[in-house]
């Protein structure tokens, strides 16, 4: 690495000072990683002057050199969740555009100006998680160390989100979860440096059980297939818990490897089990495949199928197969309120009339939520931004009143329950009808209950 030795020593000193304030191994990691990272970032020694007025020590990638703050967007561009990743990236790019130049929700958020964030222009880098935890870890670490991102975000696959949460906490750089639905993300794997807007499998169970049991009846036997990683496992557990509490009985549950393309053999076993209902706990392309295989094999004629977590790209891929299938979604453009309509409109204008998916809304919302929190804090210093996000009440992202709970960084929010439309009615980008928007009062759990009981958030980094 060739760079200006003077500026290195200045920044190195700051980094070491920050690291000294933290405790134990985390501090040591931060120190050595920080030393790695500043090779690229500090071309000019004077650029950091703007931060001189802050009273905060260096921490993670704070302070920012120059007058541009960089966000990292780490999405699956390959693997079974790549369609979701593509749509997330569209929304991230839109968010950055609006933060810098106004437009969309930025005009409505009272904390945001549309002239950058804290007088910094926002830039971004992209990464590919490949729907794989170790690839995501590597990509996130590169963003933090080489690109000096001040915040990174991304999602689809909870294993990936959890891996990135590890990077966030270790490096003391904030991670804003996009789509991740495992109970563990804000349960046993929760961290201080990450926030989740998306609900989880536990809450899906709470929202789906009353609707589905009312539709299909009491005392039924069900069979579950689930994706064999963090999300699928907690998804299976939550479905079992809530549907058995409602009087149903799980006959069996079988794990399928992530990135399975042919589910027929797994399905034949489900078909011969004698169960009344089949839960397909698969997501992304895996979900589209398992549902299509199930319908192609005629299983929907013998059993009721439930797809607990759904989204628009999946419905697009499975097309006619989603007819009559119940599930929950993160958000949908059909939800009729001011922020939802506005987001759908600006997204469509930017991308040739395309309707945004739930993951896109999450990506857009999480980027803006971070920026607004930084504005409220008056600094990018991560512990202060975190404190602004904790227990923050908001009603501006299209899902009604919400709270970003401090005890586990899990948004307390409403959940849309949907039913797939037949292919003949899938017009104008609508794939499902919204059956119910389950109020946040009917889902959720206390800080000492459910997944939250296992959550230990860890340190802010300024203790």
């Amino acid at each position: 690495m060739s760079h200006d030795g003077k500026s290195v020593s200045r920044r190195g000193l700051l980094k070491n000072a920050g690291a000294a304030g933290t405790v134990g191994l985390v501090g040591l990691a931060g120190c050595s990683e920080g030393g790695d990272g500043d090779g690229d970032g500090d071309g000019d020694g004077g650029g950091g002057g703007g931060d001189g007025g802050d009273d905060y020590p260096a921490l993670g990638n704070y302070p920012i050199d120059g007058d541009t703050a960089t966000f990292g967007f780490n999405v699956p561009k390959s693997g079974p969740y790549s369609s979701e990743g593509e749509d997330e990236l569209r929304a991230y790019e839109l968010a950055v555009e609006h933060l810098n130049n106004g437009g969309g929700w930025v005009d409505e958020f009272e904390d945001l100006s549309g002239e950058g964030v804290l007088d910094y222009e926002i830039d971004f880098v992209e990464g590919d998680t490949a729907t794989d935890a170790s690839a995501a870890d590597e990509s996130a670490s590169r963003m933090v160390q080489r690109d000096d991102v001040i915040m990174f975000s991304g999602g689809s696959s909870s294993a990936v989100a959890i891996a990135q949460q590890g990077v966030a906490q270790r490096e003391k750089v904030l991670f804003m979860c996009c789509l991740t639905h495992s109970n563990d993300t804000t349960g046993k794997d929760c961290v201080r440096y990450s926030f989740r807007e998306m609900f989880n499998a536990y809450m899906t169970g709470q929202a789906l059980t009353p609707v589905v049991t009312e539709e299909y009846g009491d005392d039924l036997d069900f069979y579950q297939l689930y994706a064999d990683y963090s999300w699928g496992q907690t998804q299976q557990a939550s479905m079992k818990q809530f549907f058995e509490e409602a009087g149903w009985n799980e006959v069996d549950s079988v794990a399928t490897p992530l990135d399975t393309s042919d589910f027929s053999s797994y399905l034949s076993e489900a078909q011969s089990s004698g169960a009344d209902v089949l839960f397909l706990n698969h997501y992304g392309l895996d979900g589209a495949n398992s549902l299509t295989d199930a319908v192609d094999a005629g299983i929907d004629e013998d059993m009721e199928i439930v797809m607990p977590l759904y989204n628009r790209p999946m419905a697009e891929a499975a097309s006619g197969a989603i007819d009559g299938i119940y599930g929950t979604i993160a958000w949908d453009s059909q939800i009729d309120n001011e922020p939802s309509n506005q987001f759908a409109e600006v997204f469509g204008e930017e991308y040739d009339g395309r309707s945004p998916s739930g993951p896109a809304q999450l990506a857009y919302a999480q980027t803006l939520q971070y920026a607004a929190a930084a504005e409220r804090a008056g600094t990018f210093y991560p512990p202060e931004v975190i404190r602004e996000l904790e227990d923050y009440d908001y009603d501006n992202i299209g899902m009604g009143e919400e709270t970003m709970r401090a005890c586990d960084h899990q948004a307390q929010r409403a959940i849309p329950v949907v039913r797939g439309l037949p292919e003949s009615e899938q017009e104008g980008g609508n794939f499902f009808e919204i059956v119910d928007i389950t109020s946040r009062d009917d889902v959720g759990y206390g800080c000492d209950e459910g997944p939250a009981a296992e959550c230990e958030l860890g340190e802010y980094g300024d203790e």
Partner: protein
Amino acid sequence: MSLVGELVVLLVNGLQTGAIYVLLAIGLSIILGTLKFVNFAHGALYVVGAYIGLLITQQISIANGQLAEWGFPTLGLGWGFIAALVIVPPIVFVVGLAMERFVARPFYDRPDTDQILVTFGLAIVVQELIHALIGPRSYTYDIPSEIAGGIPFSGPVGVPLSAVTIDVWRVWVIAITATLVIAVYAIVEYTDFGLVVKAGTRDPEMVRLLGIRITRPYLVMFGIGAGLAGVAGVVGAPLSNINPEIGMTILVPAFLTVVIGGVGSIRGAVLGGTLIGMVQVTLISLGTVSLGSLSINFTPWAQVGIYALAVVVLLTRPQGLLGSEEVTA
């Protein structure tokens, strides 16, 4: 579901899974048996077949690929799946001829390790080219539910006397594979061309001394093997996804099929592919079996099962089930 019904579903799924392996293994096995050429790029031919078929069948939108930046946000002819089924094999046949002429032939007399390195490298080049040009995302085929005359083509169809429904496309895959395998077998066994190829396998020097140009039959055999891999790409793709990595994923079971069946043997490839398909599908379908207090879940053992099968065969019949010792020696 009745026992008969379960067996029908098991048989259809197993044979169909095996059929794809058979289509790939025949090409691999013939090329390895006749030309003594280890072709790790065979999976790339499968990918090429799948992508060409995709572009013939429908129009795809390219999001992350270089082609989008070059002004092709959508690509494809949209002629439908039947057209792809007809057009892809000859195209991949020609690709195979080119591969033989420019990649394989210069390496015929080189050691196996050189052949492996160059073909594996070629497979990576193909994979990464598609990755860069079209992008890493997965695509799925649109496949018609009926063809002309109202014959069911895909989707659920009831099986007589068993009260079960199966995806009829799987039956088509088995039928198409069986037809092609019989055709190739007939060519090799009952034509002069096949005689030359078989003679060349035994003693290429003697065949040359008899005044027969042996390079041309080899070229054609390579092309046929490639064409079959292309067919596998097209018929297999509606049951799975198409992305640049599928060639590498399918290569290993295809080689296992050759190992189990025996190098150079078409009948061996059929037997090996069917065995692997059936073992894999049976283990997945068995699920949890309770024997008294002992409860075993077989599903996660499906992958282990096919390798265990290969191990048993290699230990007891190193030349493969239907392979002859001379060929592997």
